[in-house]
């Protein structure tokens, strides 16, 4: 182990889950033991919620319905635009409407196993328990899930699950679920129960006497920096895939809220756990600003291949069968093109690293439908995937029925995030973290259709039943924005904003972001090695120094300045990137979506190391030049027994 990279601190553990009762009784028991807040007192308690996605929107609506005074902040113009809106596939729930043997226990089991034994069993079990109520809630709100002719809800099997437990609304499930939460939130806004702060970005957390008591924000249109206080703060600010610059996240998705909370003392868990999705539309040029995901279902009928020869730039239709390498079918005869996301992604990277990639920059592989079209007819393929072929055509200008598609993996989701206990409370009392922003329930790999489930579980059902235990101590001593801690936080935000605007160097913010993203993709992406990670760890501090001396941020503070917003976010991504690389380097095992070159089986498959790494790595922030401190949360598997994945 490389001790200069980090130091080891005290272990950490969740103390909220009632482990004295069996796992399937713990959530009920926790709800029972959690202290309640008298309805009359709730009106006197205020909660800040940052974000309006599935987690934030549902939490804001639910806490307002319960009678708390909610202050909701988001950076987009409308709560309806949070990036949850872009989720395509579906949402899992253990309803067993198909009578195919599904149950809470099976969903729990699949999720723990899918997370490659790096998630906390108690949390995952609770997630499975509340999954059914989410569907009930959404249907009551009018979410138009897909239905069958009998009028009942349709289900499908998703992401290789053997049961059909995924509820969906065509390819726009996230959109419809988000609008359900958004409408519930707008209802509470209309009733005056939620104070709304659109186009407002959280830039710091105010911690008073060890408790989270407020946030410092910048209004993106007016540039006004202000401090808002409350009795508790909830972060629902999403994931950090944009540290890679190119990802399937929205352009505005960022780590800033979570990172600034981390800098104020909240531990950041498993930052290196990111999910890479194998079927995205490849990059077409340097100007590329984001990547677009295409449903994984395409692999059901498409065959993945690259030319056998390097640098073969012929039109794919001109390449004869015997000069093609259907590498997934070759390496994994049993699963073929349907191997899990991480394996499909990693092999795509391997063949392109060999110089056999196709398309602009050689960063793509073919997904070919010729066989399926011959077997089922073009009509059938159109009926199944027409919208995806149209989308592909719109973006690339190519007719995929003729040429096939070019696909490449892209970063899609981050399992890491701020460490939380069973109550979803971070290591700062009064700071709760929900949805993708916490490290939560997916371990080292998230299953398809589980992100929507987790976001809504946290917001509708978990947080509203745990935050009361904290708020029952309230009302807390009254503090306002004149408190020295608040003044200090606001001043530091002002100082950073002024600093960014005053550097006036020669490189744009985007150029730093692109360089950082490329570095992270190359060395902290699908496959990591000590050598690569050390390279990244050498370069990142240089990028940081250059950023703070040579960045050029245009405009001024008092106007709508998107360049300034971006600069602040990139500054945080640079710091996060360093921690991600430290985390990745210290975790000398292949697990979940991550392949560590030094940890593989003789056949070259991922090798998990349960003996040394069956823990959550929760990192404590330290100032620059002081190595971060690692706090381990040991993971114990009392129900699902540790087993190695195999897809050969």
């Amino acid at each position, binding site marked *: 182990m490389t001790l200069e990279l980090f130091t080891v601190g005290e272990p950490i553990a969740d103390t909220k889950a009632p482990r004295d009762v069996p796992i399937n009784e713990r959530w009920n028991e926790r709800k029972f033991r959690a202290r309640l807040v008298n309805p009359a007192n709730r009106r006197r308690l205020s909660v800040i919620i940052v974000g309006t996605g599935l987690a934030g929107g549902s939490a804001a609506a639910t806490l307002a319905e319960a009678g708390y005074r909610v202050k909701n902040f988001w950076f987009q113009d409308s709560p309806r635009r949070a990036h949850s809106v872009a989720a395509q596939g579906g949402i899992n729930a253990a309803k067993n409407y198909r009578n195919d043997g599904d149950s809470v226990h099976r969903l729990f089991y699949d999720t723990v196993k899918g997370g490659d034994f790096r998630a906390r069993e108690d949390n995952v079990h609770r997630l499975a328990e509340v999954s059914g109520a989410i569907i009930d809630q959404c249907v009551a709100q009018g979410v138009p899930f897909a239905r069958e002719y009998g009028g009942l809800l349709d289900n499908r099997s998703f992401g290789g699950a053997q049961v059909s437990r995924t509820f969906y609304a065509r390819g726009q499930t996230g959109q419809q679920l988000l609008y359900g939460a958004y409408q519930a939130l707008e209802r509470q806004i209309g009733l005056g129960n939620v104070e*709304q702060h659109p186009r407002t970005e959280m830039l710091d957390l105010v911690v008073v006497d060890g408790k989270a008591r407020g946030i410092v924000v910048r209004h993106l249109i007016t540039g006004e920096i*202000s*401090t*808002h206080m409350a009795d508790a703060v909830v972060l629902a600010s999403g994931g950090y895939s944009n540290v890679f610059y190119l990802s399937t996240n929205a352009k505005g998705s960022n780590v800033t809220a979570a990172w600034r909370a981390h800098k104020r003392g909240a531990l950041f868990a498993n930052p290196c756990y990111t999910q890479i999705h194998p079927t995205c539309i490849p990059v077409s040029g340097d100007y590329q600003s984001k990547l677009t995901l295409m449903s994984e279902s395409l692999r059901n009928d498409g065959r993945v291949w690259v030319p056998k020869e390097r640098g073969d730039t012929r039109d794919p239709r001109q390449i004869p069968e015997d000069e093609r390498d259907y590498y997934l079918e070759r390496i994994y005869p049993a699963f073929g093109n349907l191997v899990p996301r991480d394996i499909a992604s990693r092999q795509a990277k391997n063949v392109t690293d060999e110089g056999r990639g196709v398309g602009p920059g050689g960063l793509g592989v073919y997904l070919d439908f010729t066989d399926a079209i011959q077997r089922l007819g073009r009509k059938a393929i159109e009926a199944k995937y027409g919208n995806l072929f149209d989308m592909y055509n719109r973006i690339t200008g190519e007719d995929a029925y003729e040429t096939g598609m070019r696909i490449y993996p892209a970063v899609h989701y981050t399992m890491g995030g701020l460490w939380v206990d069973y109550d979803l409370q971070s290591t700062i009392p009064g700071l709760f973290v929900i949805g993708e922003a916490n490290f939560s329930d997916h371990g080292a790999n998230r299953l398809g259709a589980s992100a929507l489930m987790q976001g809504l579980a946290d917001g509708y059902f978990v947080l509203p039943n745990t935050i009361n235990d904290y708020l029952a101590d309230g009302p807390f001593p009254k503090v306002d*924005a004149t408190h020295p801690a608040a*003044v200090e936080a606001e*001043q530091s935000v002002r100082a950073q904003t002024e600093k960014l605007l005053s550097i006036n160097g020669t490189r744009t913010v985007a150029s730093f972001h692109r360089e950082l993203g490329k570095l992270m993709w190359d060395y902290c992406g699908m496959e990591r090695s000590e050598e690569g990670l050390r390279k990244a760890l050498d370069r990142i501090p240089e990028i940081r120094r250059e950023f703070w001396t040579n960045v050029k941020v245009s405009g001024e503070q008092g106007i709508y300045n998107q360049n300034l917003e971006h600069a602040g976010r990139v500054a945080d991504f640079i710091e996060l990137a360093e921690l991600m690389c430290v985390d990745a380097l210290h975790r000398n095992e292949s697990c979940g979506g991550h392949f560590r070159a030094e940890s593989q089986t003789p056949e070259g498959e991922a090798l998990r190391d349960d003996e040394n790494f069956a823990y959550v790595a929760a990192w404590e922030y330290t100032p620059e030049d002081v190595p971060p401190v690692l706090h381990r949360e040991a993971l114990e598997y009392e129900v699902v027994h540790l087993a190695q994945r195999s897809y050969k």
Partner: protein
Amino acid sequence: MASVATVTTQPAQRRAPKTGRFSNSVVKKTVMAVSGIIMILYLLAHMVGNLHAFGGAEEFNGYSHWIRTIGEPAVPEQTTLWIIRLVLLASVVLHFWAAISLWRQARRARPVPYVTKKRVQQSFASRTVRWGGVILALFIIWHILDLTFGVVNPAGTGTTPYDRLIASFSNIPITLFYVASMLILGWHIRHGVFAATQTLGQTNKKRERAVNAIAYVVATLLTAGFLLVPLSIAFGLID
């Protein structure tokens, strides 16, 4: 020292919605639709009545007289006619009130015009409906002064309806104005029938073709029917 900021960047407060029924834009549209339908029904009757001109002066004047005596002797002379006139007047006024009110709302809705604005699907009929309405209003005034009262008729007042009819449409400029107005009426009705159906909530994807077809048929029927008599006079088929 950092200033202690309070919330000054709250979004615009929700504007108080107007609760009066007749400030509701859909209600205004409904008023327009219903008054429009009343006028179309009248126009159909009017158009059929006009065809009496083909029967010669006696028949036409007789028809004209009949209108004034419907219901006699149960009710005094011209009672029915005045009822029709009042209903029509009310329809015209309401139609105009709704149009002007919606027009003003539309102007408020776009205080800064586009430098460049193209049409994607807007039809000629829908585009011309507002100015067409203004022209039709002017036409109606002239038409009443011309053929009902004879004030602006070449044959003058104190003549028979048939005399006024022949006098007007023997005059080429008047005939051209009339023809132009009827074409505008056709376009107005083509959009109006569709819009009224939509406004009354009666269109859907399945009915869309049928509604459009009906709109075309009604518009064509009225325009053609109204043009038949003046053109016949102009071309000397009636004299």
